[in-house]
């Protein structure tokens, strides 16, 4: 009987070969899908070659190497699962609404000079808007390609795809220096050790995850303008359990809202920033939430302002364009949608359906 690792790799090889054949069978009538399919198939076929050479390696059964070969197996197995659940599922069920979304996102990317390949998009997720990072796949809920008010969140997801290590390092340096100073000051002023420890925890959370989310929000606000602020408030109203909750993956919604307002003000959108702020206050009062004491410790306004400045500077250096209604028809439409909705929520759907229909006839010519 072959040893365990050999069995596992043979099983995985069969899974990869199946995925490769599924990808080969995907109809090649849509250029966007073909380009993406070829990219993923190339990676899958590369994994097939790696597994074949591992199976052929006489060292596979060598006891001193078994654990490392097992670890290699796990990474390959995870990748197969990601490809299966993401690209293969999306492409094998690709519909007109997915193509519309993909082309809409591609047009958005063109408008602001997105410095990365446009993703394949699919309206097939139960997890709100999300990005499957190593595979450049953007997923949105089924209904969203037919509605305009949530689409600004696409800009946030596009920012996730950037993964510019130098930019992230720049943001991290900024937040780290800020908290290092705060910690030194707290120690000098003999703060209680629990408060100093809290500062150290926040420094770590900013470094690990919060900066990425703030960076994505701020880039989205920079390129989409006020519409992203309105969408953020709506999303908080829908999904937030507490506006001040500190999670491992996301900063508090209230802090994100402040950061978005700062970016809008920085870009000169003073009137909409003020209106969004008023709506936020109304939501805050309606939900009867209270700001906890440590909130300002975790999310100092001075640091948020510094991060806004870093994002603006990065966008300018990377050639990413700021929101301009004259040259960005899709971003302008999303802003107009919010203006229409706020002026007349009851009749908005009629206006929205007409705009969606016009967009579809432009992006999906018969």
């Amino acid at each position, binding site marked *: 009987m072959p040893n365990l690792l050999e069995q596992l790799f043979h099983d995985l090889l069969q899974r990869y070969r199946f995925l490769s054949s599924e990808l080969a069978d995907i109809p090649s009538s849509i250029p966007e899908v073909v380009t993406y399919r070829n990219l993923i198939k190339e990676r899958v076929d590369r994994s097939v070659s790696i597994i074949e050479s591992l199976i052929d390696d006489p060292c596979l059964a060598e006891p001193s190497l078994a654990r490392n070969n097992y670890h290699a197996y796990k990474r390959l197995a*995870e990748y197969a699962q990601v490809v299966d659940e993401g690209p293969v599922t999306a492409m094998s069920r690709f519909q007109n609404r997915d193509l519309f979304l993909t082309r809409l996102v591609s047009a958005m990317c063109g408008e602001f000079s997105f410095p990365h390949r446009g993703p394949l998009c699919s309206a097939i997720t139960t997890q709100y808007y999300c*990005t499957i*990072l190593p595979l450049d796949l953007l997923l949105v809920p089924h209904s969203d390609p037919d509605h305009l008010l949530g689409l600004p969140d696409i800009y946030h997801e596009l920012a996730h795809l950037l993964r510019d290590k130098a930019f992230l390092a720049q943001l991290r340096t900024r937040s780290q220096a800020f908290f290092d100073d705060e910690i030194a000051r707290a120690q000098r002023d003999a703060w209680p050790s629990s408060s100093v420890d809290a500062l150290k925890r926040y420094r770590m959370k900013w470094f690990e995850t919060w900066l990425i989310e703030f960076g994505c929000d701020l880039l989205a606000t920079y390129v989409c303008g006020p519409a992203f602020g309105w969408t953020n408030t709506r999303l908080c109203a829908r999904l937030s359990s507490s506006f001040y909750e500190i999670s491992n*993956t996301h900063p508090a919604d209230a802090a994100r809202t402040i950061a978005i307002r700062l970016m809008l003000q920085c870009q000169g959108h003073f009137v909409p920033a003020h209106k969004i702020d008023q709506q936020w206050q109304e939501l805050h009062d309606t939900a009867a939430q209270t700001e906890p004491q440590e909130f300002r410790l975790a999310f100092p306004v001075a640091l948020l302002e510094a991060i806004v400045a870093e994002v603006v500077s990065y966008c300018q250096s990377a050639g990413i364009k700021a929101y301009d209604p004259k040259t960005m028809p899709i971003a302008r439409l999303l802003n107009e949608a919010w203006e229409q909705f706020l002026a007349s929520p009851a009749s908005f759907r009629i206006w929205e359906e007409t705009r969606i229909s016009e967009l579809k006839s432009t992006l999906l010519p018969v």
Partner: protein
Amino acid sequence: MSDISALSHDYEATSQFAEKVNTAVLNLKKKLSGLQQQPDLETLAGIVEAVQNQLTDSTPSAAVPSEVVVRLRAEHQRQIGYLVDDLNSAQEALRGKSPVDQNVIRILDAICDAADASASAVFRRLRRR
């Protein structure tokens, strides 16, 4: 807004680290077993040094995913000083100052195990299992 995009970042960083350290250790072991491999000892020494730095300094760093460091710390909580010493010795051996022996392999295996467990944990979190 979804946790998926944030966790995708985590998974990418952790799995890439796990793959990098595992491949380097595998090549080193093959070399020690007399098989034809050219191990990248400098890369390994750099990883060991980064782990050591992150264990001894609470300042965040992107060189090693924090979950890997947390796992190593949890597994060696009572002997963290010995772990740091072992990491230092391993680093010196990988830089040619002493022989690469079984003690070095043991410490490299510990890093591989922590990296593998971290990548698997983030992957499971992505699936909410």
